[in-house]
C-alpha cells in the first residue's frame, strides 16, 4: 500500500475497488439527501407550523424525499454487489453475527419509506401538528437507525478478532470506541450534500433562493439561501470535529493507511474540498446570492470531499484485511464473463434514463381538464 489509491493493487482488486467507490458515491448522493433531508424535516416540524409553512425547503423535501429514497435504495444495490466481490467473508460474517438486529433495518426501512409518503398525503394534512411531528421524527429515527446499523456492521466486519467472542456471547450488538464518532462523521457529511442538492434543485425548479422574490420565505430572519449555507456550514464543521474525535480511535495501521501514500492525496482532496465549500458558503451567505460559478465551485468542493471520504473509508478497511488472499478471489471473479454485456446494457439504459428525463421535461404540460394530478 505504498501507492495512491487505487494504484498499487493487483489489476482485478483495483478494478473492483474503483467500481465500489464509484457506485458507493452514487448511492451517497441520494442517501445523504434522504438522511439529512428527513432530519431537516423533523427539526422543521419541531420548530412549528408557521416555520414550516414559510420554509420552501420543507415543502420540497416532503415532495421529493420518497423518490430520493427509491433512488437511494436502487443506487445502493450496486455497491452491495461489489462489496460482496471484494470482501465477501468479512461482510457476510458481520451480517451473520449481528443477525436479527441487522435484519431489522429492512422492516424499519419499509416503515420509514411509507412514513415519507404519509407526509405527502392529504390525510396527514388534516391531522394535528403533533401528528406531523411524530411522523417526521419517526421517519428520521428509522433512517438514523439504519445508518447506525450500517456503521456497526461495517466496523464489525473490520474486527475479525472479535468475531468468535461476539458469536459465543450471543450478543447482537457491537460496540467499539469509534462507532459514535464514525457515525457522526458520515451523518454530518450528509448535510453539505443536502445543501448542495437543494441549491441545485431550487435553481432547476425556479425556486427563489434570495432577494425580494424570496422575502416571503424568510424564516427566523434567514433567507432560503442563508438557511442552506447554515446547514452546510454546520455539517462541515461538525464533520471535521467528529473526524478529529474518530482519528485517535483508529488502529495505528489504519491511521498509517490514511496518512500514508495510499490515502494522503485523498485526505488532502477531502480537506481541500471542505475548505472550498466553507469559503463558497460563507461568500454566498454574506452576499445572499449564489451565482452559478459559485455554486459550481461549491459542488466541486463537495464532490472532492465526498470522494475523498469514500476512498479513505476503503483505505481504513484495506489496512485490516488479508489482501493476498482477497486478491486471488478478485482475480477469480474478474475471470468470469459478462462484463461486456453489462457495459453495453448499462450504456443503453443510462441513455434511456437521460432520454426519459429530457422527454418529460420537454413534454410535461399543465394538467389537462378533467385529469387528476399523479403526484
Amino acid at each position, binding site marked *: 500500500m505504498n501507492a495512491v489509491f487505487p494504484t498499487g493493487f493487483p489489476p482485478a482488486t483495483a478494478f473492483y475497488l474503483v467500481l465500489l467507490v464509484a457506485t458507493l458515491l452514487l448511492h451517497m448522493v441520494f442517501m445523504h439527501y434522504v438522511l439529512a433531508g428527513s432530519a431537516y424535516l423533523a427539526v422543521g416540524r419541531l420548530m412549528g407550523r408557521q416555520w414550516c409553512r414559510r420554509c420552501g425547503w420543507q415543502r420540497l423535501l416532503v415532495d421529493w424525499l420518497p*423518490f430520493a429514497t*427509491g*433512488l437511494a*435504495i*436502487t*443506487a*445502493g*444495490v*450496486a455497491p*452491495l*454487489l*461489489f462489496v*460482496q*466481490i471484494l470482501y*465477501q*467473508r468479512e461482510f*457476510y*460474517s458481520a*451480517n*451473520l*453475527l449481528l*443477525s436479527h438486529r441487522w*435484519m431489522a433495518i*429492512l422492516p424499519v*426501512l*419499509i416503515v420509514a*419509506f*411509507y412514513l415519507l*409518503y404519509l407526509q405527502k398525503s392529504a390525510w396527514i394534512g388534516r391531522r394535528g401538528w403533533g401528528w406531523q411531528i411524530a411522523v417526521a421524527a419517526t421517519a428520521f429515527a428509522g433512517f438514523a437507525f439504519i445508518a447506525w446499523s450500517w456503521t456497526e456492521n461495517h466496523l464489525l466486519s473490520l474486527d475479525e478478532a472479535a*468475531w*468468535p467472542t461476539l*458469536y*459465543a*456471547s*450471543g450478543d447482537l450488538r457491537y460496540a467499539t470506541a469509534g462507532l459514535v464518532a464514525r457515525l457522526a462523521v458520515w451523518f454530518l457529511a450528509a448535510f453539505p450534500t443536502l445543501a448542495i442538492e437543494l441549491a441545485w434543485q431550487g435553481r432547476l425548479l425556479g425556486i427563489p433562493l434570495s432577494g425580494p422574490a424570496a422575502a416571503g420565505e424568510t424564516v427566523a430572519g434567514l433567507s432560503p439561501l442563508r438557511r442552506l449555507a447554515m446547514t452546510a456550514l454546520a455539517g462541515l464543521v461538525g464533520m471535521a470535529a467528529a473526524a478529529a474525535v474518530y482519528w485517535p480511535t483508529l488502529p495505528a495501521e489504519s491511521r498509517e493507511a490514511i496518512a500514508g501514500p495510499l490515502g494522503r492525496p485523498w485526505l488532502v482532496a477531502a480537506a481541500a474540498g471542505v475548505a472550498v465549500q466553507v469559503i463558497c458558503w460563507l461568500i454566498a451567505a454574506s452576499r445572499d446570492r449564489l451565482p452559478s460559478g459559485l455554486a459550481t465551485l461549491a459542488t466541486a468542493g463537495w464532490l472532492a470531499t465526498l470522494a475523498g471520504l469514500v476512498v479513505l473509508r476503503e483505505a481504513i478497511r484495506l489496512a485490516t484485511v488479508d489482501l493476498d488472499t482477497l486478491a486471488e478471489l478478485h482475480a*477469480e*471473479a474478474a475471470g*468470469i*464473463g*459478462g462484463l461486456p*454485456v*453489462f457495459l453495453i*446494457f*448499462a450504456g443503453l*439504459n443510462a441513455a*434511456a*434514463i437521460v432520454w*426519459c*428525463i429530457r*422527454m*418529460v421535461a420537454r*413534454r*410535461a*404540460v399543465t394538467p*389537462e381538464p378533467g*385529469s*387528476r*394530478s*399523479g*403526484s
Partner: protein
Amino acid sequence: MTPLEHYPVVDLGPIMKGMAIGGLGIFHVFLAQFAIGGGMLLCYLQWLHMRGRCRLARRFIDDYFKVLVLVSFVLGAVTGVAMWFTSIQVSPRTIGVMVREFHWVWATEWSFFCLEVVAGYLFFRFGPRLPDASRLQLLGLYSFASWMSLFWINGILSWQLTPGGWIESRDVWQGFFNPGFLPSLLFRTICSAAIASLAACVLINLVPGFTRRERESLVAICGRPLVLMLAMPLVGAWYFGSMPADSRGWVTGGSVPMTMFLTMAVGASALIGLYAIFGILRKQLYVNAATAGLLLSLAFVATAGGEFVREGVRKPFTIREYLYSNSVARDGIAELRQRGVTADDPYPLRDEAAYPSEQLVLGGKVFRAQCSVCHTLGGVNSVIELTGSWSLEQKRLNIAQLQQTKPFMPPFAGTPEELEALVQLIGWIDAGRPDAWEESSDPAVLAEIRRWIDEAGTRPGHASLAAATGDRRR
C-alpha cells in the same frame, strides 16, 4: 474450491431457516410479478386508449400506477434487497457463489432496475401531464425494464436447479441460458400477466368514481391477459420436463410435502384459469371486489406452492451438482471425512457450558455445520423427532449412509468420531439433556461407522440410486 467455509451460523430457534427465506421469497416474487405484469397491462390499456377503444383507460392507468408505486416500489424494492440479506443469513456460501459467478448479470439487472425506477417515478409524477404518445413511451420503457429484470434474475435462479453446461465449462452464459431458463421465463411471464389482471380487478372495484357499467367494461378489458393462462399447462409441462429426473420424482410422490405443494400450485392455478376463461372471458361475468380478492389470494397460494416446489426440488443441493444444501462442496465430502467438518471451525457453541461433555460439544458443532440449515433440535423439522424411533445402531447407520437413507439428503461429511458425537447429541437431547452423559469412544463402533460411511461413498443419493437401478437392470 474449499470443501466448506466456516461462517457464524445463525440460530432461528424453533424456526426452520427455509421458512424464513421461503416466506420472504414468496412475498417478493408475488410483488415483483405484480409489478412486471402491471407494466404490461398498463401499456396495453394506454394503447387501447390511444386507439379510442377504452375511454376510461387513461384515468384507470393513473390510479393503478399509484398502487404500483406504493406497493411495488417500496415493498417490492425493499424485499428484493431483503432476499439478498436473508440469503446471507441462511446460506452465505450459496449466495456468495451466485454473486461471484453472476455478478455481471446482476449488475446488468441493476442497470434495468435503475431504468425501471426512473421511468416509473417519472410516469407516477408527470404521467397525468403528458400527452398520450409520451405516456405510452414511458410505460413501454418501464414495462420493458421490469420484464428484463425478470429475464436476468430468472437465468440465475433457474441455474441453481439446472446448471447445464456450466458444471463442466464454468462458462457464465452456459449457466445463464440453462435448460430451465426459457420455460421458467415464459411461465413467470404468464404468472405476472395473470397476477396483474387479478390485481386490476380488485382495484377497479375499490377506486371510487366509476359507475357499475364502467367497472364492467374495465373488468372485461383488464381480464383479457388472463387468456394467457391457457398456455400454462403446456409451458408448465415444459418447465417440469426441464427438471432433473430425481427432482421430478420428489414432486410426483417421492416427497409428500413437495407433492402437496405442487398440487396446491396446480390446483389454485387451475381454479383461477377456469374462472378466468369461462367466467370472465367467455361469459363476461362481472367480478366484484370479493371475488377478485379471492382470485388474487388463490394466485398468492399458487405462487407460494410454486416457489416452495422450486426451492424444494433442488434438494440435496442449493446449486445442483456443485454445492449441497449445507454448503458443503459436492467434491469436498471425501476430504471432510478425513479432516473433519469441525476441524477449522473458529466459532464456539453459544451455550457450550450447558453441554456435559466435549463429545456433545463436538456433536453440537457437527449439527450446526451440517444439519442446522434445514433442521432444528426442537422445533420445525427437528432431528430429534425425525430420528426418535430409531435405535442407536440405526442412527449410526442411517446417518452414515444418509444419502441412501433419504436421497434428498446430502452425504454425511465428517469423521466417524464426528458422526458418533452427533448421534450422542441426539440421544442426549432426546433424554431431556441430563447433567451427566457418558462419552462413547468404542473403537469397534467407530470402525463400523467408518465402514458404513465408506460403503455409502461420496456420491449424492440420486447418483447412487441411478447406479443401483442400472445394476439391477443389468
